[in-house]
């Protein structure tokens, strides 16, 4: 929709530079989620959010660690009968660091909104919190796990950890798939098993 009185040239400028946060277009938003570079004339908030998200993309999930891709594929296979495709993460994610200035601004904003930077602990679903804990060092969720399931999970965790430590990606994938299956039909259980095993917490009594 063209603003009243705007020429087509003015419209192009309006559509790129005049976007406020809530009007960010879908292409920009998809690019943020995919880790693609934002265009130079992207709205300021879009660039900030893109940098913030990039800082969360741990190298752990970028294929830098041995066996990571095998584990990711095993996880995706465990939740889906459809063959997993290679991750479409763009290399721009690998920057992964906020500038000191932006980091300070984000910390200040978070503290202003929630009173403390770590106030999100418990605000996110437990498995997601654990995933964040593994990836970025966020506080772990305290997830109540039934004893039987915990023991079974610990055995599978140990199997997975051993397979991964031995460098046997195939065995690690199999172990992870078994773990995901044993975690139950719920999506949370699958993700929990994934997050537990990706951070190899077999010795942790409350989560193992």
């Amino acid at each position: 929709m063209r603003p009243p009185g705007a020429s087509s040239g003015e419209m192009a400028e309006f559509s790129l530079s005049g976007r406020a946060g809530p009007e960010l277009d879908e292409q920009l938003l998809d690019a943020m989620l995919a880790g693609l570079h934002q265009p130079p004339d992207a709205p300021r908030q879009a660039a900030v959010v893109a940098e913030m998200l990039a800082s969360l993309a741990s190298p752990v999930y970028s294929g830098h660690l041995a066996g990571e891709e095998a584990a990711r594929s095993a996880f995706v296979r465990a939740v889906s009968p459809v063959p997993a495709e290679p991750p479409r993460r763009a290399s721009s994610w690998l920057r992964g660091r906020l500038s000191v200035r932006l980091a300070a601004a984000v910390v200040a904003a978070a503290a202003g909104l929630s009173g403390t930077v770590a106030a999100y602990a418990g605000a996110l679903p437990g498995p997601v919190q654990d995933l964040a804990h593994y990836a970025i060092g966020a506080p772990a969720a305290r997830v109540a796990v039934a004893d039987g399931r915990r023991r079974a999970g610990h055995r599978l965790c140990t199997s997975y950890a051993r397979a991964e430590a031995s460098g046997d990606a195939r065995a690690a994938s199999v172990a992870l798939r078994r773990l995901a299956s044993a975690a139950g039909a719920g999506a949370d259980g699958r993700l929990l098993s994934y997050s537990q095993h990706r951070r190899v917490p077999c010795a942790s009594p409350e989560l193992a």
Partner: protein
Amino acid sequence: MGAEFGALERISAQAVMALLATLPPDQAEIIVLRVVAGLDNQDVARIVGKTPGAVRVAAHRGLRRLAATVDRAGVTL
């Protein structure tokens, strides 16, 4: 320098998570799965029990809210 930068990285990542936690839980969860775990809409949809389209819409809504939040807070690059 290394240790200081590591501490800054960690606390800023936690600050980003704190901002994400201001979103509705389903939007925050989907964005974390997309960004941190690197899953696509289809995989996230299977995990959270939504359609890929609904996942995309929820992610977009979350990002728009996040952009509005950083705008109000005056966060700049």
